[in-house]
């Protein structure tokens, strides 16, 4: 038997009281879980670094990304050209940084647009139910049925795409998955007591959706948005690689690989570098998205 002094007893009690008082809100719990998820933190740090590089980088380069320099065709990496030059003698690093701006901008904006569209349609379907739900979900199924890549390629032939057009088209084909997720969340929320109470007080539909249902679906929306940034970056780069996206001379990570097959034997970096940037960026967003997904779901508290 260990005898406590009075002082120790007080300390002990104090400690117990303190630990009992630590009641975390769901948001704090999520932050805590996210904090313990190394992979997600790595993703977040990678995204911050990549975004900074792409924003600041082009200002530090002395070359014009589109300037053809026939004396430096497929030049080897040197102090002058850190990563060498491509088949038109353009500085690879400069194009990589400028291309990154385009690729990231297209990826982020089309993900944002598609999540907004998806949330709107999912919210309408989930909130109103009945015929509205039936019609909207059949429409969603229909869009899901459309083969995305071949359709985007066909559209690119019809309307020579500008970057803005590309963003809109990618978003128009990507919203269905987020619509489904938001809808199913709305269907769950709709039956909860606080929502019924709010409805009983006679709040308008718009207010119900905007102040009660949408904020409580924000976790689903954020996770889907993060994951779809990666998807739309891949979509843009694939289209640009196939010659149906961002048109040269404007650089994007995808169209920088268009001629990679003819240059990779002599200048392997022209084939490696842009793809590596795509991989790293998409990887970062997928790490983050998956980590957020784990963080918001208490059931998935693994470790």
């Amino acid at each position, binding site marked *: 038997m260990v005898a406590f002094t009075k002082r120790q007893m007080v300390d002990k009690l104090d400690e117990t009281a303190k630990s009992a008082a630590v009641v975390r809100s769901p948001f704090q719990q999520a932050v805590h879980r996210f904090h313990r998820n190394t992979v997600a933190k790595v993703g977040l740090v990678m995204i911050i670094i990549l975004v900074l590089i792409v924003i600041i980088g082009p200002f530090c380069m002395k070359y014009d990304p589109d300037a053809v320099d026939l004396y430096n065709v497929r030049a080897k990496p040197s102090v002058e050209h850190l990563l060498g030059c491509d088949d038109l003698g353009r500085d690879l690093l400069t194009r990589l940084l400028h291309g990154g701006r385009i690729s990231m901008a297209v990826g982020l904006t089309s993900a944002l647009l598609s999540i907004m569209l998806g949330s709107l349609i999912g919210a309408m379907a989930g909130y109103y139910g009945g015929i509205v739900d039936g019609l909207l979900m059949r429409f969603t199924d229909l869009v899901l049925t459309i083969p995305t890549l071949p359709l985007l390629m066909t559209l690119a032939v019809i309307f020579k795409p500008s970057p803005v057009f590309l963003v809109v088209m990618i978003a128009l084909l990507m919203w269905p998955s987020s619509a489904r997720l938001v809808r199913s969340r709305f269907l769950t929320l709709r039956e909860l007591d606080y929502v019924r109470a709010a409805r009983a007080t006679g709040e308008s539909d718009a207010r119900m959706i905007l102040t009660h249902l949408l904020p409580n679906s924000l976790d689903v929306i954020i996770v889907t948005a993060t994951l779809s940034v990666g998807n739309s970056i891949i979509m843009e780069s*694939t289209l640009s690689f196939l010659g149906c996206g961002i048109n040269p001379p404007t650089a994007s990570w995808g169209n920088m690989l268009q001629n990679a097959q003819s240059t990779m034997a002599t200048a392997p970096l022209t*084939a490696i570098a842009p793809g590596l940037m795509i991989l790293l960026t998409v990887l970062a967003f997928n790490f983050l998205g*998956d980590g957020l997904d784990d963080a918001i779901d208490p059931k998935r508290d693994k470790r």
Partner: protein
Amino acid sequence: MQFACLSEYFLREGEHKVLKYIGKRTLQAIPMLLAVSIIIFALLQAMPGDPLDMYLENPNATPEAIERIKEAHGLDDPIHIQYLHWLKGIVTGDWGISIMSRRSVLSLISERVVPTLQLTGTSFLIALLVAVPMGVYCAINKGKAFDNIATPLTFFGISMPSFWFGLILQLIFAVGLGWLPSAGRTSITGANAGSALDIARHLILPSIVLSLIYFASWTRYTRTNFLEVLGQDFIRTARAKGLHERKVLFVHALRNALIPMVTVIMLDIPVIFSGAVITERVFAWPGMGTLFYDSIAKQDYPILMGILMVNAFLVIFANLLADILYAVLDPRIKY
């Protein structure tokens, strides 16, 4: 064993019920197919250029002759009549003539089917044979070294732009090491050009690239599913009965974990076509994807429409099959 289960189920519930469900779902697919065909037809209408443009440059084409052609092809008809005409052609096998090669679209597409099936089939098989065992292994050994390495690695598979993966494999195995051919389906010269072995050698790189798209997501899906099933009561019961762990895992758990996989795999079948467009382009594989890509470059609309239609049909058919298989395999589903 699965079969015995199924027949028992049919006897119990009455076979007509399942058949009725299959019939109902098939009928539901038809409006879907019509809607997609309308979208594709609308695209066709939005295409720049007019089928008659090429006659306008011909000095021998009198206005009367052009009028006659218009009438013969129904180009003055209202748009819905033109659509019905086009739809009739699709149904009866008249898919139009390619602008570039002046050959029938249907025959052009059908001669590309075999190479595409070779590529997609092999990739599907590779993905399935690697992903499912790997997912199961990760789930059984959850939190151990292999799982901790393999699961984050699947992220690479999901995040990898497949065309770049193809380029890198070419760079390493064809350009660098010279072990495998970099492109094409057969060698142009050589004693065994065109033999099965030759095609198989050409098939290795593209099918690895194409299978990567599925490999990662299927591994993750199998792992999640398997873990979920392992947490269920009937597994605890089976273990409590003293059943051999191997039997619990590979008979009770695996079978139940694979049922949702059937749907996922079915729904991925159409996705493989988009993948084929990319992979076939990178490896110059002479399949439908390459045909599609070439037709894009040449703006050969009839072929584009034909391939889009084939693809849409495939998607809807796969959806249908997924629903039916799910209903048949999972007795808990109520029709």
